[in-house]
């Protein structure tokens, strides 16, 4: 038996954050909260989120279970909810549907078969650099890069974090020095190039909800983006594979 009440904005963030990678996802309902981990069909982007029970108005989960959600459908219900509404979710094991209440509105959401959805493992990675940067600055660089190219390079040195995008003739650079950053840990220069479309979608989720983003970087290595909201009770982690620059 699972029953929970939550602000629509919180649950919507989680659904949106997952929907940039996939159409359907498996969520784990546990006594401590809701967890999810999914990789996109191209195996280029991964999300791992934790929605702790403290983020909920009320939370009650007597037994662990897994539910499969059609994210588009869920989103269409959540759209109806206003900022002041509260979303109630109920699920009984083996019932095959999630009951969502918004005000007096009641919607039965059919669930998907989770036996067909594989478990995703987080790859073991070691990152030589860690940068904590203001979300707004990162977002600005991404937006500016979009008109130039379809990828962007992250470069970290001992004291700077640089984002660089090169088009046919145009070059765009945004450099954040130690003073502009919240923190930077980096022994020697590392750099990796990433697809802009994925990165844009990921940073967009954090924009306006989390002041800062933690970026873990390596040399031609995946990037890890982490951000928190609701006093750390919602935590979203993205992994993104780099583009291969040369043969």
């Amino acid at each position, binding site marked *: 038996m699972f029953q929970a009440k939550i602000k629509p904005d919180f649950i919507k963030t989680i659904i949106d954050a997952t929907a940039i990678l996939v159409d359907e996802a498996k969520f784990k309902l546990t006594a401590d909260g809701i967890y999810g981990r999914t990789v996109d069909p191209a195996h*280029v982007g991964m999300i791992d989120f934790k929605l702790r029970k403290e983020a909920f108005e009320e939370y009650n989960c007597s037994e662990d279970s897994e539910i499969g959600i059609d994210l588009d459908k869920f989103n269409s219900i959540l759209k109806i909810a206003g900022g002041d509404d509260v979303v109630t979710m109920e699920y009984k094991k083996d019932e095959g549907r999630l009951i969502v209440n918004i005000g007096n509105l009641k919607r039965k959401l059919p669930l998907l078969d989770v036996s067909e959805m594989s478990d995703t493992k987080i790859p073991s990675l070691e990152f030589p650099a860690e940068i904590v940067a203001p979300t707004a600055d990162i977002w600005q660089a991404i937006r500016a890069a979009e008109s130039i190219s379809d990828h962007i390079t992250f470069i970290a040195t001992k004291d700077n974090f640089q984002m660089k995008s090169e088009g046919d003739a145009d070059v765009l650079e945004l450099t954040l020095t130690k003073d502009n950053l919240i923190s930077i840990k980096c022994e020697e220069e590392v750099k990796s190039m990433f697809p802009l479309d994925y990165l844009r979608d990921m940073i967009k989720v954090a924009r306006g909800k989390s002041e800062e983003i933690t970026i873990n970087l390596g040399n031609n290595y995946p990037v890890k983006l982490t951000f928190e909201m609701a006093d750390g009770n919602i935590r979203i982690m993205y992994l993104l594979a780099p583009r291969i620059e040369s043969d």
Partner: protein
Amino acid sequence: MNWTEKYRPAHLDDVIGNKEAKEKLLKWAREWQVGSPSKKAVILYGKPGVGKTSAAHALARDFGWEIVELNASDDRNRDVIRRVALTGAVSEILGAPEDAMGRKVRRLIILDEADNLYERNGDAGGKGAIIETIKAAKQPIILLANDYYGLTKGRGSELKKLCIPIEFGRVSEREIVSLLEKICRNEGLEYEKEALEAIARRCDGDVRSAINDLQSISYERRITRDALRHLGYRDREAEIFTALRIILKARDMRTAINQARILDESPDNLILWIDENLPAEYTNPTDLMRGYYFLSRADVFLGRTWRRQYYGMWRYAYELMTGGVAAAKRYGRGGFVRYSFPTWLRKMAAGKQERRMKQEMARKIGKKMHCSASKAMEILPLIKRIFMNAKMASLLAVSLELKREEIEYLAEDKEKAEEIYKMAEKIRKMNKQTMLFNF
């Protein structure tokens, strides 16, 4: 659980048959561990069920590669192929890009049934997106197809230059039988070896259908020749005999036509059955003549269907060979008539194995002698003469890479074939060693 899944080979070594194809695939994959080969993609092509998909998956597992797969069940238009295959092909994997030994870890992109994509005119089609993907690819790509020609015709002709074609042929009966034996032992089934041989013979080199056939008669826990009947060959014959009786004895066209509809047999086959048995049923010469007139008209439509590849014309063939033939008789013949299996089909089936083997040998000879397979077929009897000399035969067997059963055919004698085979193996081993030394 489905046995074809349960016994899907875990390693490339476990994929039965197609030794040469597996070696080619392995060679290409090894190049990916140290760098980027000039051909980014391979096309594995061949009949269904011979191990193409299994080989691709087993390869990825052996090398510790990640798999991104686009199946026929996915809606594979240009956008989906670009979003999944192209994105995957230009990106590193999500994990550490090198393993502990410093070899590159790859993302293998597998496109199942690549000859069966969503196609529209021009750039919107799936083939265009595949070509674009392969050109940009920095990760290995495997295309799977039944029909190499269908895949590489038209817009797909560029694929010929971009990919290494690797053919997967039929798997030999011997290998299928030994796999079936392994499965039987593992499942704790009793079996008659002859029954397994019959299954292997019938599946025509298709391992998947052999395993499926085995599973479908396994419920009695005993695999016997008797149980094989459940698989339907005999039943099918009985069904056709009944339908044939109704068609040939019909008093009106509709009955005959409807019967053909229920029967669900292709008109190319049905016409053989009617042709074989018409004289038995129509004893009046005028009736028989008129019956054959309609049958020949039906055959004309079958020819047109074939030439124009327009299967809408099958219906005319059907109606002429059933309704037409039924309406042709003025004097019906009462009583039971014994029908028989089409002679032509029987003869074709009997020589099938041998014909295929001869063709395969002719292909090998043609390759070495720079002539066509049909030209090589002409000199096959001469090779047979040479095979009377075991020493020369063994040298030939090595250079033509003949299989054991092919040697047996040419030598026309089991013991002699065994001797030639052993000698050939020795020579092969020696060649291999000298090659190693030269290297």
